[in-house]
């Protein structure tokens, strides 16, 4: 597994645990209410698991297992994938913090744009690797 995939996957695992923690707090609070303010974590729970866990994990595994070239560099131009890792994690917190602290919706919009840029950057990397055996 290449180093970037290790970063993607381990970061995704961190978000999995964080998302499960928030989810556990929400669910237990729904069963036996003890802190109504915990309901604010709902959007954060969704964001962290959908983008931080599922999407990030998919990117990490795709970078690892998609077809490689016979010549160096085996994974082609990797800059898009590295950029995607940075932008995705920046985007997650740019969305999550305003949701948590009720900041202006403008910040959430900026975060979503950063996440979309991450998806675009990853697509530019993975597009040429989406090939059959015949190339």
């Amino acid at each position: 597994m290449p180093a970037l995939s290790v970063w993607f996957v381990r970061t995704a695992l961190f978000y999995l645990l964080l998302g499960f923690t928030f989810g556990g707090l929400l669910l237990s609070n729904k069963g036996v209410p003890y802190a109504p303010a915990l309901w604010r974590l709902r959007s954060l729970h969704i964001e962290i698991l959908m983008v931080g866990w599922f999407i990030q994990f998919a990117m990490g595994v795709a970078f690892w297992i998609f077809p490689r070239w016979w010549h160096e560099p085996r994974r082609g131009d990797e800059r898009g994938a590295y950029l995607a890792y940075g932008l995705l994690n920046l985007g997650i917190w740019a969305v999550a913090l305003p949701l948590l602290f009720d900041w202006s919706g403008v910040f959430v919009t900026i975060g979503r744009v950063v996440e979309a840029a991450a998806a675009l950057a990853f697509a530019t990397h993975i597009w040429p690797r989406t090939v059959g055996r015949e190339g």
Partner: protein
Amino acid sequence: MPPLTRWFIRIAFLYLVVGLLLGLLLALRPILPLPPFLTGTIPVYFHLFLVGWLTQLIFGTVFWLFPPADPPRPELEARLGWSALLLLNAGLLFRVVGEPAVALRPGSPWGWLLVISAICQWVGGLAYVILVWPRARERARAKGRREEAA
């Protein structure tokens, strides 16, 4: 494919079927007189897909596909893996029962089932992260090659 992977994947498919059937029931609510507890199953419906189906499918596939830990620790991995499977599914089933019950009778003792569900799922998730973390790694050969090049 190791037995743990087969269990994760087969159970994931069961959740997919159950989730789709529940979705069908929820869609029929406006035209059929269905029991009121169904309204309380909307969050359950989403979690059947996202935890029961997708997360378990990923868990099973990763256990099969990822490189082994270095040094290998098969006994610990078996314990962590089976614990994750049991706890995650027990937690999800407690939720399937508890959430509609709480929606019908807020403040009833059924609420504690959701607390137990939350704890089971969290510990199951933690067990899985501990299992997979050291397996998300560069192979020694690739790492050596990269260090040589540097």
